[in-house]
């Protein structure tokens, strides 16, 4: 018998933590797709390491979200048994690993650089969270994010300041990705509430420092800074792109088909 979905109580604090947890989870899942397919063996391991760091962060966050919700949902139930609309990740992480073909390395390293910079800025502030558990998770995760940022930013510079072909692919990746970054810096009732009770920063507060770091990176990578986008993706409110269902099918299949399965 297939495992039924769980319903999640969407109090603002739960949603705030779920947004982070799901953003890490889905990016980790996407990066996991590189396993065995990266351009060189060494980078294959590097990408898998980043994916595992993200999934580790997500596990800790999902556990905390379950505790805040107070309905005894554990990390596995939250990761595997929710309906699509109850996932709160930003849309940018659910996009396939390339706009026109999967396995686009430029797209992958650019998204990683954008996301790692965002996560690092967020973790730095979450170390001061009024929630001691979240602050502790941030203390560990910030070190991981720092490395993710260094590794992926190095690749962005190598490709942007590399050959004509690598620069062209990086520009194409930026064209496809940039407008999805905007969602990471819009505030709504959820993060305004989190900022008010000290749980964590408003996402809008990360915008200026993030843009400054992106500008520095793009300068070095000889990329032109794109204009602001009017487009807004809506993954963090539960309204996802057409790609989300396919990821969830991959992610959830085992727990749905074999409830409670473990090894």
């Amino acid at each position, binding site marked *: 018998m297939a495992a039924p979905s769980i319903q999640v109580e969407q109090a603002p604090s739960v949603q705030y933590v779920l947004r982070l947890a799901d953003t890490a989870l889905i990016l980790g899942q996407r990066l996991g797709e590189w396993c065995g397919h990266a351009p*060189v063996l*060494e*980078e294959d*391991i590097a990408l898998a*390491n980043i994916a595992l760091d993200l999934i580790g962060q997500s596990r800790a966050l999902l556990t905390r979200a379950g505790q805040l919700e107070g309905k005894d949902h554990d990390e596995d139930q939250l990761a595997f048994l929710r309906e699509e609309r109850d996932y709160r990740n930003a849309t940018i992480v659910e996009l396939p690993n390339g706009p026109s073909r999967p396995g686009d390395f430029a797209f992958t390293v650019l998204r990683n650089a954008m996301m790692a910079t965002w996560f690092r800025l967020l973790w730095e502030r979450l170390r001061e969270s009024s929630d001691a558990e979240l602050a502790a998770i941030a203390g560990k995760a910030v070190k991981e994010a720092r490395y993710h940022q260094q590794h992926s930013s*190095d690749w962005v510079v*190598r490709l942007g300041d590399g050959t004509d072909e690598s620069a062209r692919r990086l520009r194409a990746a930026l064209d496809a990705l940039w407008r999805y970054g905007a969602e990471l810096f819009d505030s709504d009732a959820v993060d305004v509430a989190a900022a008010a009770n000290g749980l964590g920063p408003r996402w809008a507060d990360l915008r200026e420092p993030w843009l400054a770091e992106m500008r520095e990176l793009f300068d070095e990578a000889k990329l032109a800074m794109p204009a602001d986008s009017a487009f807004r993706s809506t993954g963090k409110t539960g309204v996802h792109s057409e790609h989300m269902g396919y990821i969830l099918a991959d992610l959830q299949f085992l727990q749905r088909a074999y409830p409670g399965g473990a090894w």
Partner: protein
Amino acid sequence: MSELKSNPMRGQPADEAADEWPLWEVFVRSRSGLDHKHCGSLHAADAPMAIQLARDVYTRRQEGSSVWVVRSDQIVASDPADKDMYFDPMEDKVYRHPTFYQLPKEVDHM
């Protein structure tokens, strides 16, 4: 070198080898106070990439607190053909081992 290049067992045409990232040897120190130990090699385009990939490939299970990398072609090695001449003469010179002394008990781990 010409002999190596023509050896079919190398399995790699010379022009393809030129496209490959250079090889680096990796040395990892497991804890402060211990020395760096050779643990393997990897391909990387330059030194910063080699350090990062060494970290990713060779310290995933908490093996390291410090990493060194060095271009493999910068290592000068003894010729295997010289092995007999270089190392066999030491076989019968046990008196070079400091095993004929009584060490004071306080001197551990010599």
